[in-house]
């Protein structure tokens, strides 16, 4: 069904995947940066320019949605569509990793 529609987004950049992955929980921008750096053990860092662009694009594509906003910050969360995309990419990555098994 919509899976074919979502496939056009693959492969996701690391930044995109990272952002979608942590937005299972609603969060604002800087919290996303910190969470991604923390969970990736410092391997993946997101710059504010990158994050701002990603939020705009992901919101436009309805992969994330704004859940709340105060005068300073917006909080986002995954949409159902975004969740399916993360599943799709994760599955794809598992298949790739599987190729390494002798």
């Amino acid at each position, binding site marked *: 069904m919509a899976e074919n529609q979502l496939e056009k987004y693959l492969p996701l*950049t*690391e*930044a*995109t995947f990272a952002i979608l992955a942590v937005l299972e929980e609603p969060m604002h*921008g*800087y919290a996303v*940066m910190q969470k991604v750096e923390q969970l990736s053990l410092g391997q993946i*860092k*997101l*710059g*504010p*320019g*990158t*994050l*701002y*662009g*990603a939020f705009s*694009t992901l919101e436009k594509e309805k992969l994330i949605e704004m859940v709340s*906003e105060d*005068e*300073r*910050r*917006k909080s986002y969360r995954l949409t159902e569509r975004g969740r399916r995309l993360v599943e799709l990419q994760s599955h794809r990555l598992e298949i790739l990793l599987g190729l390494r098994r002798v």
Partner: protein
Amino acid sequence: METRKIRKFKFFMVWQDDREEAWLSEMARSGLHLKSYNGFGVYTFEPGEPRNDIYRLDYLTVQGEERQHYLQLFKDAGWEHIQAVGGWQYFRKSPGVDGPNEIFTDNASKILKYSRLRPVLIIIGVITLANVSRIIKVEGLFFQIAGFISFAISILFLVTLIKVWLRIEQLKRL
């Protein structure tokens, strides 16, 4: 107490933003810290202690509340906004402060930044070029000269557009 201000004149083309960033960082290392830029080559610095500050430029036109969100995101990440000049956003960060030392951490977002320039360059280029034929038709040396200047400006925009396009293609190949 009045702080001495030091002005420097330097001209960077649109596609030389990385050189501009490096130059501003170099100025900071010699104790000159950017206070403002007038958009036409005049940089105003405040003298002070030498610092290893990182300067980075973004290109984005955004207003109102959306602009506040944008600036707050950078501020949270440790980046100080110095000035906006015609869409160019000047940021600086001290490496000692918490947060990422780059504003763009992947190529896709760098490409987005340069892509935002294209429509502006195309529109201005087309407008100045369209004006050339109108101006040249008018009798008189003044209009001939004005037509020539208009033409030169549209060539400049065309060259800038090409250079920006090349930069985007270069980034895509990485």
